[in-house]
């Protein structure tokens, strides 16, 4: 497999702010790659550098075998983009905007355009200024997905879409995947990425902090086990990799590291399992692990402040 997107040591500064701080990102051709991070982590900046809208301060970026800044026009014929916050021309209708953007790229697939307008339930006759946020988003999604582009750069594409449309969107992206297209899907909507992405990169403060398949990442994290046992489960806390153990009334609940899951389940079975549920780690938990220190710092900081205040008075 060849890389559709490969960046190494990408840095982008705005004045004294380092929006990208040595970003390494690889997206293989044909995969749906989830690009996860909270607001301000550098997702949009990365995509804009990949589009040649911003010029990288240093580092290398390779997009479909070309340089995103120098070869922007040639590369853009092969890709489509959905911005996170779509603005439309106030006096152009949605349909006009879709056609214009498609034609400027070099043509769009009329049959697919009609199908997408229908599926997303979009009224293409309304003027740009009268669309709600969700409908503006639909216009950009239809304009991008009605193309035959081999690479799709989607920056939080479903922000503002209702859950029904979210399902349609997932369906369409799966269709794109089946056609062998590459998708970079940035989001902080974790459930969506979980359903669609083959691989995931987590970005934080302008750096990719973790990258891999969901399975690989899950292996690195903890599974939550809940069980009812016939005899009280004891001694589990001495097992390696077991955390947050709560036991009582014949019920036990704990989290266990991926590589110690086997041992923990074996130990648990000695107590006679009546019912067992296990939760794989959600992406929220994956994210929390990477931002946990931040959250903890914020939480502690706030607590510390109020404590200080108390002391001072």
């Amino acid at each position, binding site marked *: 497999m060849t890389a559709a997107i490969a960046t190494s040591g990408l840095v982008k500064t705005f004045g004294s702010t380092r929006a990208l701080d040595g970003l390494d990102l690889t997206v293989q051709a044909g995969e749906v790659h989830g690009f996860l991070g909270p607001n301000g982590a550098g997702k*949009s900046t990365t995509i*804009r550098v990949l*589009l*040649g*809208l*911003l*010029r990288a301060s240093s580092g290398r970026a390779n997009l479909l075998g070309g340089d995103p800044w120098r070869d*922007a*026009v*040639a590369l*853009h*014929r092969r*890709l*489509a*983009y959905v*911005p996170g*916050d*779509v*603005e*439309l*021309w*106030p*006096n*152009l*209708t949605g*349909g*006009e*905007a*879709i*056609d*214009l*953007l498609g*034609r*400027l*790229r*070099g043509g769009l697939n009329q049959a697919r355009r009609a199908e997408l307008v229908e599926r997303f339930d979009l009224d*293409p*006759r*309304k*003027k740009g*200024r*009268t669309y709600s946020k969700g409908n503006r988003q639909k216009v*950009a999604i239809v*304009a991008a997905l009605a193309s035959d582009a081999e690479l799709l*750069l989607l920056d939080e594409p479903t922000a503002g879409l209702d859950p029904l449309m979210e399902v349609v969107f997932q369906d369409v992206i799966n269709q794109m995947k089946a056609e062998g297209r590459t998708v970079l899907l940035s989001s902080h909507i974790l459930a969506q990425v979980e359903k669609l992405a083959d691989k995931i990169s987590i970005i934080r403060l302008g750096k990719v902090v973790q990258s891999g398949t969901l399975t690989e990442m899950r292996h690195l994290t903890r599974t939550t086990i809940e069980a009812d046992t016939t005899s009280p489960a004891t001694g589990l806390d001495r097992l390696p990799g077991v955390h947050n153990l709560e036991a009582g009334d014949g019920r036990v609940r704990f989290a266990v590291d991926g590589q110690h899951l086997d041992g923990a389940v074996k130990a648990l079975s000695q107590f006679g399992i009546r019912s067992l549920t296990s939760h794989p780690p959600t992406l929220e938990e994956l994210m929390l692990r990477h931002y946990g220190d931040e959250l903890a710092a914020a939480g502690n900081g706030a607590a510390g402040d109020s404590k200080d205040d108390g002391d001072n008075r």
Partner: protein
Amino acid sequence: MTTLTREPAHATATPARGNPLTGTRGLIRFILRRDRIKLPAWLLGITIFVFYYGAALPQLYQTPDDLRVVSQFTEGAVGALLSGPGYGLDNPTIESVIVGVYGLYFLLAVALMNILLVARHTRVEEQTGRAELVRASVVGRHAQLSATLIVALAANVGLSLLIAGAMAGADLDTSDALLFGAGVGAVGLAFAGVTALTVQVTEYSRAASGLAGAALGAAYVIRAAGDMITEGGSALSWFSPLAWSQQTRAYVDGRWWPLALSVGFAAAAAAAGYLLSGRRDVGAGLVAARRGHPEAAPWLRTPVALGFRLQRASLIGWGSALVALGAVYGGITKPIVDSYEDLPEEMVDVLGGDPTRMLDGYVSTMGLFDAILVGVFVILGVQTLRGEETRGRVEPVLATATSRWAWFGGYLGVLAAGAVGLLLLVGLAIGTATAISVGDAGYVLDTTASHLVYAPALLVILAIAALLFGFLPSATGATWAVLGFGMIIGFFGPIMDLPQWVHNLSPLEHVSRLPLDDLAWTPLVVLTVIAAGLAGAGLAGFRRRDLDTK
């Protein structure tokens, strides 16, 4: 600041069930809080010009004879076009020059202040959806409009007093200071009323302030045409709210009663606004948004086509306005030129220096005037482009196979062609109307040429804006200074006694005044080359810089 102190919430929420004005007091405080910088800045910004003129004019024109020169310049048609009916300028004082020559600009500024103020606190609030939040609380149907109009009323009264106070503070004669101030405030009220009406009509704040701006433009044109026909204004002048304030004849033969027309007009317009606002939903206009085409026209497929599509409405608007203006100013050529018979010598100088060719002088002056108007179109066009960038609409376009060169270059091409087309259009309109008015078909061509000759100078102004957009995009608006300078030098240069190099700084000064002068091709070629060079540099700058994203 007192506006910062808030009453407890329940005070504004005292139940006055069914009262459409409930909450007005709270909203007034809210408006004052939001505009705590903007409103004082407008008021002081306008007032400070009284001090400026009060200090500058005695310096510039030290003897009554000097003052006569400037006032003579503002007699006749050009004076009527740019200043007003010209009361008291036969025997000018500093005060009557401020009122008679510069007074109109106070009126325009206060009208603009009121249009923006009223639109900002009514339609903009509704369009952004903030009004929904406000109206969802204990606020009556008419509270928002009432609060806005009360603030506008207070601001206009305050401005009237400030201007009168400034006349006193600048050591000027105070006999009619309050009348002049009240005249300024009255125009403000009139346009607050007009805007209270226009914001009910459309859903979009820009269309609403645009309609009110068009009313101001119409008031200007009607007044200018009326004042050009007869010195002191004709019956036509009296159809313009601007004229009512000018007809108070402050510092000449002051009279208050014309201001009653302004107040009555403002009240009537505001009443109509209330009536209409009671008949529509929050956020809706009286004119429903039209639906458009589900597909783009086949020609809408290139960056140039996009540029044209974005400028189309503006081109149609400017084109119609300029043709209307051309027809009016061309149609009254005969009475104007007849009135030139006993023009003072300095005025003859300004109009070309040949008393036997005053009509040609008038035609060339109209060329300059219209060129400046088209210059406004050009700069607004580049600012629209800047808006496209900062609002994030350029991003999806440049993410397609559209190069920055094609996007920016195509748009500049549309603006350049639009500027030339507008010059041609207004030239033809004035030319045709002039030819009919004076009965000489030759003026169709002469007048068209007197306009088109400004095209290279306008291209330079466009290119300066393009250069700024390429390298210092946030400073694109600085191009206004070039146009403003060109206007001052163009109209007042002849009486300002400035060194030649200062004149040369304005691109408009290098253009032959047709049909008075012979056409000099060299400066036109040089201007075009300069324009191409600056625009090329701007394009290169834009290709190298980061896009400003949201």
